[in-house]
């Protein structure tokens, strides 16, 4: 039996070992870069309420493994250090400081979560560490004037909401809009984007706004409330599980509004099928990427590249998960940035090249959607194309719109 004395000795030794970490030695001039390696860091919610998004970190790592197997970038392998922050901002701050100060990473890539990214943004900008391609659509992360080291990637929620609002104004100016939104940064950004684009003149168009908490089991009562308000246009700013419930309930109670659903929840496999394909006919969304379960992309060469990658580097993973497609796209964008840097991998150069992407197309983005950045534009993807669900697939229509 372990005596108490031994326990205490062991704990003391452990505590000492914890705080005495060897300092990594890097020979090159650029932080985090050696002749053979580029070290980058990120925080992901591998545990906690947002752990479903942890797959993004895993796919990022798998993508870089693929690149490394192909020889790396200019002879250097990418070493991604991904730490868990449990979707808690204080933990994110701690982990990021560890990555920057102890692990001496070159930059932070694709960290997830608006709260976490908000918490670390000041620190990273102060220390001039690039915070690239943050995994959140919050519009605040594309502000080069105040935060020159922070850049988003996906179309931000306001852009999406703005595109919807413009479409409503153009096609149904007398619409009565009811909006269901998640009570967090994502939902509220959406709501504000919609209202902003409608403007004060048309503020009366929004007849009802109803929120829900991520912890709620169902949004059925919210949908009924919206139906009762007399709305004839339904904007669903909800994550997959709740979007499916919203579609199903609206149909079941006999409410037939014009439906707009956020890009986050357009998955045929994860949202529309569980809701009931016939119940979602006519719904519209703003699309920028190819959706994994959409039959239209069954034989698409770009998506097949992705499928081959998933089969080889993420065996057993869920291939209906839109997050996996997303992660592939972001990682590919980073590889392009690093390639453009050539031999100079200093933080300044990395940031400069990140703000220098011209008409980049990815295998997983829709034809016509191009990634563009400039020193004054830190929103890499600003374009979307509207699509309407016809019962089987998302039919793209109209032009590629830019928000």
């Amino acid at each position, binding site marked *: 039996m372990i005596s108490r004395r031994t326990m205490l000795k062991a704990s003391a030794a452990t505590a000492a070992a914890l*705080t005495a970490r060897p300092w990594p030695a890097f020979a090159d001039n650029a932080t985090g870069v050696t002749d053979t390696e580029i070290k980058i860091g990120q925080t992901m919610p591998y545990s906690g309420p947002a752990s479903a998004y*942890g797959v993004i970190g*895993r796919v990022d790592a798998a993508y870089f493994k693929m690149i490394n197997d192909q020889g790396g970038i200019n002879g250097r392998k990418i070493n991604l250090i991904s730490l868990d922050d449990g979707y808690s901002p204080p933990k994110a701050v701690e982990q990021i*400081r560890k990555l920057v100060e102890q692990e001496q990473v070159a930059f932070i890539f694709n960290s997830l979560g608006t709260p976490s990214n908000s918490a670390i943004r000041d*620190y990273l900008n102060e220390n001039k560490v690039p915070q690239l391609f943050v995994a959140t659509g919050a519009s605040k992360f594309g502000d080069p004037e105040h935060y020159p080291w922070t850049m988003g990637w996906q179309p931000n929620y306001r852009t999406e909401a703005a595109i919807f609002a413009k479409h409503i104004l153009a096609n149904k100016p007398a619409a009565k809009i009811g909006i269901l939104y998640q009570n967090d940064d994502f939902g509220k950004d959406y709501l504000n984007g919609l209202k902003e684009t409608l403007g004060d003149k048309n503020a009366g168009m929004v007849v009802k706004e109803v929120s829900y*908490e991520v912890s709620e089991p169902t949004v059925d009562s919210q949908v009924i409330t919206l139906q009762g308000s007399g709305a004839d246009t339904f904007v669903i700013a909800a994550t997959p599980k709740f979007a499916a419930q919203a579609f199903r309930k609206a149909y079941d109670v006999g409410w037939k509004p014009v439906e707009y659903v956020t890009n986050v929840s357009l998955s045929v496999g994860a949202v529309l099928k569980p809701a009931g394909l016939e119940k979602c006919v006519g719904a519209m969304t703003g699309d920028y990427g190819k959706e994994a379960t959409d039959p239209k992309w069954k034989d698409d060469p770009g998506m097949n590249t992705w499928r081959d990658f998933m089969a080889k580097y993420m065996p057993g993973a869920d291939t209906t998960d839109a997050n996996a497609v997303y992660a592939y796209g972001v990682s590919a964008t980073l590889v392009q940035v690093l390639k453009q840097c050539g031999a100079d991998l200093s933080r300044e150069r990395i940031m400069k090249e990140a703000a220098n992407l011209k008409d980049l197309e990815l295998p997983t983005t829709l034809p016509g959607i191009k990634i563009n950045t400039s020193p004054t534009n830190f929103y890499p993807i600003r374009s979307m194309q509207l699509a309407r669900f016809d019962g089987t697939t998302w039919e793209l229509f109209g032009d590629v719109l830019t928000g």
Partner: protein
Amino acid sequence: MLNFELASPVEQTGRAAVSAPRAALVVLALIVILGLPFALSGYQTFQFSRVIIFAIALLGLNLLTGFNGQISLGHGAFFAIGGYASAILTAKLGVSYWATLPIAGLICFGAGFLFGFPALRLGGLYLALATFALALAVPQLLKFKPFDPWTGGVQGINLAKPQPPLHLPLTRDQWLYFLCLVVAAFLFWVAINLVNSRIGRAMVAIRDHPIAAEAMGVDTAIIKTTIFGLSAAYTGVAGALSTIAIGFVSPDSFGLFVSLSFVLGIVVGGLASIWGVVIGALFIEFVPNYADQLSDVFGESAKALPWAIYGLMVMVIMYAAPSGAAGVAKSLARGVEGLRRRTANDGDRRPAKSG
């Protein structure tokens, strides 16, 4: 269930004459504590600042649960209230960051005192549930729409990090560490004096024999509500310091796990132990990171393993040292004392049993 065995405050900090080895230990401890920020990197100093902050929060909870017997699974709520009070005062009302500390403490004292009243009617499991509800409610309240102009809603509030005053030759991390240390020293001094006073004895009496205490003339109601308030004030000040350290607050910063970590911390440190909270704070700050490193051994796919390892370590500690670190220290002290006495009386006694 909970082991209050070593609780008596009289045993805690005796006024006995300080022996030479004891004094040497204290001096050594002081050298380590004061020298830490100069020997470690900025990041590590930041981690130890967090340890001090947690120690203050745990001390607050320990006063309530360890010394006064009122269980609280909701101290994360007071941590949040203190944190937000500091953030709002600094960001919206332009108050200097150090001035927010006493104000946050007062606000939380009020909140804790008010919560203490209905808590008088509850005991044990029911109080645990009521405080649990508080822990769940506060993050939601922080997201409440009408409060948005003040709380920043789900986006939270960003704050500037404080600079060392008077152009002292300290880095920001070192200054923060010393700020936390000074506040902690003051609060610990108050706590030690409190538990050694008449009120301290009343607190313990209420915990151990509430009916007898009442019969002896102890005003149970006033003491219980006041201690609830004081406990909340301590945790609130810790929350305010945490806001200053991190520079950001949002409702997601104060989930349920914060409250549960606090309870874990005081049990690991030892209930009703003033100095045990330091061990508890070290535990909740470093062990999750340690578990993270341990799980890396199992490869990339074991990303969620750290919490399983964390849970396992807690279970091991509960089995091996149910009275927490304070209990271990007491046993050690007794063992050393026993050994000393045995070797001193070697001549005129039978050989002692092996221990």
